[in-house]
């Protein structure tokens, strides 16, 4: 669906250098990285909103490097959804059709049809400022769809929303992506929140991709400490490694960590770390527990699971233990390629 090769954008004080990046049709890919990593610039380069200093962009198998943004058929959604405040909902959705020269009556009819497909036909005559965050998202998606876009570039669209609305909007985005076969490339700071339903992720740092792969693989086995931090991977801790016998960073996937009360016996070969229980979330037959472990380098938050069955379960505010097998621990190189 989208392929970038040798992409170079030099703004004078910043260089975006993407050697190769691709996402398949229907995928949801996260672009993660610290502020100033070039995430938004990357999206704008794909959209054709900044001139390229090198490389090529292919959308739907066609090279669009030299095409202006209006010819790329992509939807761009910013924070607050960027609905045109001087236009009604139906006028917003019909904007792309208007640019294609579709007649007044026909474009209104088409815009209303798209709005109804997304379950928000009743909003047609409302003004953007009267819509809730979720409604604005639907209208923004409807506007992109009406303009013929099946690739959505989202630039932190949820950043300004409260946590509840954010969760609702994310669920709706997942739903529409699946039902409308959309491809989504989303820039986010909140990788942990955005993870549900995500297929693919890249981590950008200083204008370069430092991690690229299936989201689940990256989270379970991050390629570097920087990638782990950007992906909000839990259970990152410092330890003295037997081989090569120096201090290094490690991680262990939450699914391999059991959080048990101090009364519970543990296997002798297990790694056991004691800490204070911060939160306990019920998740069906198990509970997800966050444990704050104090170490020489400061506190580390450990996420693991506990079964709902025993009377000696961990209790919030009390001491408990994180238990995992040494085989589940992955080393994290501080720089890429030095694992």
């Amino acid at each position, binding site marked *: 669906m989208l392929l970038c090769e040798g992409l170079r954008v030099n703004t004078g004080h910043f260089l975006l250098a993407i050697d190769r990046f691709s996402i398949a049709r229907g995928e949801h890919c996260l672009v993660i990285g610290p502020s100033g990593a070039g995430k938004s610039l990357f999206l704008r380069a794909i959209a054709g909103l900044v001139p390229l200093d090198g490389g090529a962009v292919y959308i739907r198998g066609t090279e669009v490097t030299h095409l202006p943004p209006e010819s790329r058929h992509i939807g761009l959604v910013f924070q607050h959804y960027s609905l045109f405040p001087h236009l009604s909902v139906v006028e917003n959705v019909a904007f792309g059709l208007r640019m294609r020269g579709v007649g007044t009556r026909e*474009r209104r009819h088409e815009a209303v049809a798209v709005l109804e497909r997304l379950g928000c036909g009743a909003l047609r005559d409302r003004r953007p400022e009267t819509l809730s965050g979720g409604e604005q998202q639907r209208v923004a998606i409807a506007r992109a769809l009406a*303009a013929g876009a099946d690739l959505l570039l989202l630039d932190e669209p949820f950043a300004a929303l409260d946590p509840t609305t954010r969760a609702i909007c994310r669920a709706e985005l997942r739903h529409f992506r699946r039902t409308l076969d959309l491809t989504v490339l989303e820039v986010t700071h909140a990788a942990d929140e955005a993870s549900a339903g995500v297929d693919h992720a890249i981590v950008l740092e200083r204008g370069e991709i430092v991690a690229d792969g299936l989201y689940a693989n990256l989270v379970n086995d991050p390629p570097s400490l920087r990638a782990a931090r950007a992906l909000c991977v839990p259970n990152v801790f410092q330890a003295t490694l037997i081989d090569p016998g120096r201090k290094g960073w490690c991680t262990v996937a939450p699914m391999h960590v059991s959080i048990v009360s101090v009364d519970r016996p543990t296997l002798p070969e297990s790694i056991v770390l004691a800490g204070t229980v911060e939160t306990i979330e019920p998740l069906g037959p198990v509970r997800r527990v966050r444990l704050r472990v104090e170490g020489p380098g400061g506190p580390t938050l450990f996420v693991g699971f506990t079964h709902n069955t025993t009377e000696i379960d961990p209790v919030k505010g009390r001491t408990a233990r994180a238990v995992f097998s040494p085989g589940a621990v992955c080393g994290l190189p501080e720089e890429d390629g030095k694992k």
Partner: protein
Amino acid sequence: MASGMSRGSIRSTGIALILTGNLLVVLVLLSLVTLGLRAAEDPGALAETALDGEVASAIGITFGAAALSVGILALLGTPLAYIMSRTRNRALPLVEALVDLPLILPHTIAGLLVYLLFMRSGPLGIIFGGMGLSFEDAFPGIVAAMLFVGIPYYVGAARDGFTRVPIELELVARTLGAGPASAFILVALPLAGRECLSGAVVAWGRAVGEFAAVVMIAYHPPVISTLIYTRFTQYGLADTVAIAVILLVVCGTIIIVLRRAALVLWRPDAPV
């Protein structure tokens, strides 16, 4: 003893604030009442002045030249204001200073600059002279002077308007199929329209009241300010008061109507 202000002191502070705040309003009102009383002393002069062909001609020239200068300002100043709002480079402070310069210049100097530019042997005077357009003691000279002094008023307001329009809206419009010009006309301009209109009203008002800059290049045909000054120095107060009353009524009405248009009736909606 209570730490906060007592109810009595809050009330007296409020009254003092209201009185102080209204002093300026009272000052303007008092000047208008004084003018009205002066005019009422000789109602015949008021009627005579209203029918005076020279006064009607001066009002027509003033409003016509002011409208034309604002039209040219809007045409040339809107793209400039847009570029200034969207550009971040080292030349911007210099451009901003140049745009604001007429604001701080004595208007006689502004008039001198206009004269030097547009006089028959001036750089623009030569060019326009070749096209048969003369500025010295002519209507185009009045328009040029009014245009020059109006630049900071219009461009400043329009630039503020465009700055308030998030760039993201135009970027989204581009991805929806709009070219740069369409994104500007259909998104940026309607959203900054109120400020542009407001700036145009202020620039128009400034142009109507301009005297020093105009008189430097075009003493004739007289604009209303020139006529008032001439009548005051030649015939005294009575004649001048009558012209001032007529101008106040006309200007006041136009300003109120245009302000309402800018602030209330401005509907930047575009048809679907």
